[in-house]
């Protein structure tokens, strides 16, 4: 029982971070219908941005977070303007490959600047552990779940009630109709990328805090795919369900057979695609010739 509780908490913590990473992915897909293969690199860059502000420049962590958020948002806007905007309306393969190229460039930049050795970061989240039903559960994981929950709720509320959130949904629904309504579609695109980078920064710094900061963060970018397929590529609540499910499934699978967590999410992905090709919460698109 105690092992089960522990696995569940670890799974939920991983799942919460996954949901954050997937949120950035879904934001971009929703507004611009681009699949971002560089999401893992966004996590990596987010982690290193915070590391630079916090450890290298020695800023207090509150200011470091703000600096990191601003830098991430700027990076998102620049990438959208330089790389993605010229490819609006191109075929899926072109868009996929450009984000793959972007991923290679971002990854090698990080490698050039920081090298490949993992770096320890002083803890920001509370350390220590508490007893829950006989299991010792580290506090930093619980805090990570809490932070992720707050951020995800904030983003959901943003889409539901704020002016910009509604504009983003309008653009996602129909670009031309949104243009006719006077919504600046280009600015919405830039905003989607900035917000994706910001959510990746938060995910990256949570990951950096509960583990360590190294190139391995990229691996989280690939597990985003099972998450978003499970939740549907264009559904924000779906990312939460998907993230938590995949996080839990892979923790349980790992306890049965070490290493299984690498493949179980993908098996789940294939099964879901066979039954529901548009994910559990995704929008079914009708195609006309």
């Amino acid at each position: 029982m105690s092992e089960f509780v522990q696995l569940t908490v670890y799974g939920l913590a991983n799942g919460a971070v996954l949901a954050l990473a997937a949120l950035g992915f879904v934001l971009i897909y929703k507004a611009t219908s681009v699949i971002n293969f560089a999401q893992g690199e966004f996590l990596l860059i987010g982690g290193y941005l915070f590391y630079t502000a916090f450890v290298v420049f020695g800023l207090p962590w509150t200011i470091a977070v703000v600096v990191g958020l601003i830098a991430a948002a700027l990076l998102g806007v620049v990438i959208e303007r330089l790389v993605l905007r010229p490819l609006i309306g191109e075929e899926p393969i072109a868009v996929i490959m450009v984000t793959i190229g972007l991923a290679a460039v971002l990854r090698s930049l990080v490698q050039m600047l920081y090298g490949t050795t993992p770096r320890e970061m002083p803890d920001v989240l509370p350390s220590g552990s508490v007893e829950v039903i006989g299991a010792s559960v580290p506090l930093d994981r619980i805090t990570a779940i809490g932070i992720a929950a707050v951020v995800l709720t904030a983003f959901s509320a943003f889409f539901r009630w704020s002016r910009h959130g509604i504009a983003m949904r309008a653009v996602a629904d129909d670009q031309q109709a949104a243009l006719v309504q006077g919504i600046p579609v280009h600015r919405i695109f830039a905003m989607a990328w900035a917000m994706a980078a910001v959510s990746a920064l938060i995910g990256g710094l949570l990951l950096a805090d509960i583990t360590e900061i190294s190139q391995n963060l990229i691996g989280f970018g690939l597990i985003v795919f099972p998450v978003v397929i499970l939740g549907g590529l264009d559904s924000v609540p779906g990312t939460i369900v998907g993230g938590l499910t995949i996080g839990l499934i892979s923790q349980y699978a790992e306890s049965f057979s070490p290493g299984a967590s690498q493949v179980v999410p993908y098996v789940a992905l294939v099964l879901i695609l066979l039954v529901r090709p548009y994910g559990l919460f995704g929008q079914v698109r009708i195609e006309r010739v």
Partner: protein
Amino acid sequence: MAATATGIHHTSYRSELRLRHTNSEKLRLWLALAGLIALPWLVNPYWLGIVNTIGIAVVGAVGLNILVGFTGQISLGQGGFLAVGAFTSALLSGRGGLPVPLSMLAAVLVTAGIGGFFGLPALRLKGLYLAIATLASQEIILFVVRRWDWLTSGQGFLDVDRLTIFGWKIPRVSFEFTWYWIIAGVAVLAVIAARNLFRTALGRSFMAVRDQDIAASAIGVDLTRTKLMAFAVSSGYVGLAGALTAHYTETVTWERFTLTVSIQYLAMIIVGGLGSIAGAVYGAAFIMLLPPLLAELADLLRPSVPLLADQLPAVQVAAFGLAIMLFLLFEPRGLNRIWQRAKDYVRFWPFRY
């Protein structure tokens, strides 16, 4: 010299269906052939080794282009299929005792079958969703290869014997030289076969599916059959490339077949030109030459710019990513299009068009 031709005009169906249309095209082909024959005497074994890897990559890239460029089905599962081909041929020739040509043929068939199976999601999925489904097939195949101890007898990799054809073993001194002829021969045959595929009904139905699959089914193209055949044919090529890799490098490990490899192959056909056989060849050469050329450059600049040599692995990855991005942004139709434009420029000179 004034411009001599304004375009290619056909006066009969026979002339339109010809594989090579103009005399200069034939001439260039003969020149390329002469170059291929002269090449092994012109370069040292180190570069000949790189040429050999390019030859293998050409087979794989042509296969991938049949699927992605001609049928419009995005696949990120290339690495997995390469692994299937490599392990099949290595196991059949090593443990099964089959002669290598037969084991390679078996590798082609087995990979085609497995490729067809993993093509099943393509019947319901398109574009981005299909790309993600093939990503899953890549991860699943690689997981099986890594964890199935029987494949490698538990040692994590497979040793492959030096290639022996009908009792004749490749001598150590002329290793690269002999392999060059084998690989070049296979690659040329593969390219010719692919070029001809698109003059058959099957090849034309691939292109119809790429352009609009619903419209294709309306004019009588069997979508299920065509999509599965595209996956099978393409995977057959990839399996051949995998088998060649296994026997050429003489070891098979899963590290050679990761997602990075799948991405490399996609980059080849993007850089070369989607939907063009020649493009796949140019792209394979470009992507495989990029890292060694950068290494040479870094060596050359070591005294003045030591940074380049120190950061070589990162620089190679960055150059790879930049190449993909720049081609997509400035010449989405790749090297093949650049070559065509260069030809047009010469042909119409001094006029612009």
